[in-house]
């Protein structure tokens, strides 16, 4: 059969490519603009000359930001919370998903536990009681406030649970006959077989810990305990703070010729984006498979 392409189809295809190209540019141009601003001289930025390429290219804004003690300290807090938080998340996610992935014939109490966790997905008590519970348990101003209350990400646990369920039952039964207990089966069979799924869940956890700013903002009274995103929240709301802290210090005077509020803010925002950009290829690959695993099943 001969392929005939109508004129209408041709017009559509051209329009389609144009439209999709434009729309996706709209998604990344803001980031390119940000990058350009962060690498530009302050005079050019203030004069509105910077669009998508740096003008008067300079690293000075980054130098300025890395000299800021608040910025570097909050970066440290963020790294600490990601390491602690993701470790605890993974431990609890695995330990919860395994028992819940059992059939009722193997684990009689499965249904009761499943409802116990399910209810937390249906009913969220709200900000104030949550805040007060954390306060009463003495976690405020401690790094554990960012780790313990969200130690079990229920949605991720469900993703892993569904993956565990898909593993062949025969392996487990054979191991059981050989005298292996549940701990051994989990450690020797389930975990090695679930590496892709565990990677997905770990990525979910890393991104959510890295991106979370609200808990840091309200659970930490002292700004020295802020993780990076909470600290960025304060400078976005009040960008003059960082400039004011630098003004009058002699080692900053040369830098301040090249840096202003907008360029330093752009540099800080970009640094906070780097980990996500590095993880992005993996995120793209695993997020959909992970979600499909977790949701749509027959």
């Amino acid at each position, binding site marked *: 059969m001969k392929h005939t392409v109508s004129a209408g*189809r041709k017009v559509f295809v051209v329009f389609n*490519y144009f439209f*999709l190209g434009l*729309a*996706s540019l*709209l*998604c*990344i141009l*803001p*980031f390119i*603009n940000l990058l350009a*601003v962060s690498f530009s001289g302050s005079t050019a930025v203030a004069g*509105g000359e910077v*669009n998508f390429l740096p003008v008067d290219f300079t690293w000075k804004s980054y130098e300025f930001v890395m000299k800021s003690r608040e910025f570097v300290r909050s970066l440290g807090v963020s790294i600490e919370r990601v390491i602690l938080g993701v470790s605890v998340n993974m431990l*609890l996610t695995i*330990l*919860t998903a395994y028992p819940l992935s059992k059939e009722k014939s193997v*684990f*009689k109490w499965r249904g009761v536990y499943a409802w116990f*966790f399910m209810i937390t*997905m*249906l*009913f*969220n*008590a*709200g*900000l*104030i*009681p*949550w*805040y*007060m*519970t954390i306060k009463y348990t003495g976690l405020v101003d401690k790094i554990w406030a960012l780790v*313990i*209350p*969200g*130690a*079990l990400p229920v949605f991720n646990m469900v993703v892993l649970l569904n993956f565990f369920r898909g593993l062949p039952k025969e392996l487990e039964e054979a191991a059981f006959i050989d005298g292996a*207990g*549940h*701990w051994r089966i*989990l450690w020797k069979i389930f975990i090695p077989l679930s590496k892709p799924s565990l990677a997905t869940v770990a990525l979910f956890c890393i*991104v959510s810990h890295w*991106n979370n*700013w609200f808990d840091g903002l309200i659970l930490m009274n002292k700004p020295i305990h802020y993780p990076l*995103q909470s600290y*960025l*929240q304060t400078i*976005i*709301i009040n960008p003059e703070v960082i400039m004011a802290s630098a003004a009058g210090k002699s080692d900053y005077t040369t830098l301040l010729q090249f840096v202003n509020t*907008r360029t330093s*803010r752009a540099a800080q*925002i970009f640094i906070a984006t780097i980990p*996500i950009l590095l993880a*992005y290829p993996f995120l793209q690959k695993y*997020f959909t498979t992970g*979600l499909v695993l977790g*949701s*749509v099943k*027959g």
Partner: protein
Amino acid sequence: MERIRKLRELPLHLMLIPSVIVILIYSYGPMLGSIIAFQDFNPVKGIFGSQWVGLKNFKFVMDIPGSMQILWNTLYISFFKIVGMIAVPVTFALLLNEVSKQRFKGAIQTMIYLPNFLSWIILGGILLDILSPTDGIANQILGVFGIKPIFFLGDKFWFPVTVIVTDIWKGFGFGTVIYLAALTGIDPSLYESAVVDGANRWKQTLYITLPGILPIIVLMTVLSLGNVLNAGFEQIFNLYSPQVYDTGDIIDTFVYRLGIEQQQYAAATAVGLFKSVVSFIFVSLSYVFAEKFANYRVF
């Protein structure tokens, strides 16, 4: 027999202990703590020492001028977000489906999926910069076409519009990827027989592609119903300012200001409890519908 079964189950109970403790304290604890919505709560006296006042806190909040407006803003913003978050990704997936160059398709997906993984701090910072009426690039571009600068985040009309559009901007890549995944599941032989019957691409889209992804569209729609009272705290909190409270203040931002800033714990908890109960009904219904129409089960 019974003893052996119990012995074999023991490790499973042990594994669950840490999670049960954490959830009990930090998820069920706050549920119990919600009762302060019915108290004249005094932090010094605590939950057990404060006086019960019935529905006084709820009345107090309803009498605050503008509280009905806040409910309206929440519904208005979340409604258009829900609609947009279905329409835009479906359209995008259908248009991408017509692209034959795989590399172009992949590049587009990579670009539109990125904002989804960034926090509202990052995106808020970027938006504050590009939407600025004085030196933001958005208004510079509008200026080229002779349009006067628009104060997107400071104007009562434009603020909710900007919030809706930018939220869809952030999230539509995710939906698009989901629908594209669903498209690959459509049986190719359906298209072949449609071509034999003389159906053009438009007819194929209308009668094969769209019905093919309809179950996923229904599922996503139903699941988003649980968000009717979630107009997007993280986004609005970072973008709003007192001059747009009239149209941009939502339940969650109101609870934050009332509870955390003004420390009116009981009143803020009352508002939060109202939201929790309504959301609970919607989320539960959405799961019931999802199971009924799309055979979707969480556990």
